């Protein structure tokens, strides 16, 4: 894939403290339009740090990130309108209604026909009956749906979603998955996705990136990873790969300590 076709990150390293290992250590990845890449790893593996760097909000210590050929770290403003982000850690102002919130973001993203764009996204996400309701009165599932609606309002080319279904019941999560799949298929949306729900990752992803302690453990399709780790499903792949990665890391540390003694 050429640099101009999507997101290409190479050898990203980010260290927050000199005496601790890097939060992200030499990760490379690429996503093109119409493709879903899931980033999977345990808590503290470096997923959120990686996404912050890909969004251009955090400067890597080394490595490069190019989005449609543009250096994200240096020229974020040139491509900021082509990306968007949603996370369960975020919300929208509770005192504004669903429609008012989307109206604000339609203006912030300088959409040419804000009213139509908001009407369209309300319809797509079945939010029309909730349009006049304040966000504070919505259920967790409805807020998550609104967050993704906000993220898709600007018709981004690449969308970053950080555990978007973490707080949802299975039915609401399934609704979100279907909507996302439709957008990927019809709007050629590139999706970078993190989740701890392995079944969801398996269903949604074209490729999966497994990371542990900031390092890439494996990358491939769900089938490829299952074959590689001789497992029947992605959950087993996750457990096995993480266990192997930790053993490998502990082994290396032990070796290093051992050689130090000698």
């Amino acid at each position, binding site marked *: 894939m050429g640099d101009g076709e999507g997101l290409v990150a190479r050898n990203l390293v980010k260290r927050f403290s000199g005496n601790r290992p890097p939060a992200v250590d030499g990760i490379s990845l690429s996503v093109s339009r119409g493709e879903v890449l899931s980033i999977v790893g345990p808590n503290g593996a470096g997923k*959120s*740090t990686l996404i912050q760097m890909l969004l251009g*909000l*955090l400067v890597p210590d080394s490595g490069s990130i190019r989005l449609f050929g543009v250096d994200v770290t240096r020229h974020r403003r040139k491509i900021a309108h082509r990306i968007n982000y949603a996370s369960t*850690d975020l*919300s929208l*102002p509770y005192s504004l209604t669903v429609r008012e919130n989307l109206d604000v973001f339609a203006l912030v*993203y300088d959409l040419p026909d804000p009213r139509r764009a908001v009407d369209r996204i309300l319809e797509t996400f079945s939010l029309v009956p909730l349009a006049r309701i304040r966000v504070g009165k919505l259920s967790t599932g409805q807020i998550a749906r609104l967050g993704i609606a906000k993220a898709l309002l600007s018709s981004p080319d690449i969308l970053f979603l950080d555990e978007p279904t973490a707080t949802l019941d299975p039915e609401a999560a399934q609704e979100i998955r279907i909507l996302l799949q439709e957008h990927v298929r019809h709007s050629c949306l590139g999706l970078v996705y993190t989740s701890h729900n392995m079944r969801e990752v398996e269903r949604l992803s074209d490729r999966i990136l497994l990371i542990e302690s900031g390092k890439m453990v494996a990358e491939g399709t769900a089938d490829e990873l299952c074959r590689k780790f001789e497992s029947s499903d992605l959950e087993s792949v996750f457990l096995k790969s993480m266990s192997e990665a930790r053993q490998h890391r502990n082994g290396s540390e032990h070796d290093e300590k051992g050689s130090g003694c000698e």
Partner: protein
Amino acid sequence: MSEISESRELPIRRPVSLLAIRPLAGILLRQLYLYRRSLPRWMEIFYWPLLDLLVWGFLTLYLKQGTVHMAGTAQALLGGLLLWDMLYRSQQGISVVFLEEIWSRNLYNMMVAPVTPFHIIFGAMLTGILKVSLSSGVAVFLAWSLFSYSLFSLGLSLVPFVLGLVVMGWALGIMTTALILRFGQEAEVLAWGVIFLFQPVSAVFNPVSVLPAGFRQVAFFVPASHVFEGMRAVLSGKGFPWHDLGWAFLIDAVYFAGALYLFHRVLERARRTGFSLKLGS
């Protein structure tokens, strides 16, 4: 069977008494833990009494001089109060806009959007102008209808007075916001209190000449002190205070440039060290 008989022997805990000490101790301990790690909270304990004492102490010194013309002083007090409120509202305009985004966990959505933080600042300034216009409009009307005091008695000089104070408020609002972004919600108290740090040296209710020497020197570097000195000059018929306003705008420019620089540095740091997604959650 033996398990059941064992469980029956367990002591049955009684409901918590209304006079129980431990729950009270728990609530006290929760606050002590909070204060143990929070310098801003400790500062707040001493901050307000000290500032109140200084402001009203300096006013008392002024009134004790015996040279005060009561009618003119009453006008200056009301004028000072109305203008001070404009300064306060313009600072709040900026800080509260950011705090609203933090409280609603929406700031990160804004950072991701294709706007710069400076768009948010300038948007906040516009919001501030609207708020100042509304709140001061009401206050000026009430002062006129209830106390027969018209702020417009300051004439055309009112315009630069207001502008000088609003710009200082913006600068302090931007600085406060930068500190909140840097130190998190611990620094939130600054949004409500930082402006009052400047009140004793702003000579709002008394001339600068009343202040002790050290305070007078500090007051020189506060734009508001020049504005309020100018206001008193106008009220005592000394004409348009070019000199005072010149200093006010010059120092305002320094404050504003410094605030933008600080804000820029905080954002640069956040890009290196990470911006908390959970800021405000």
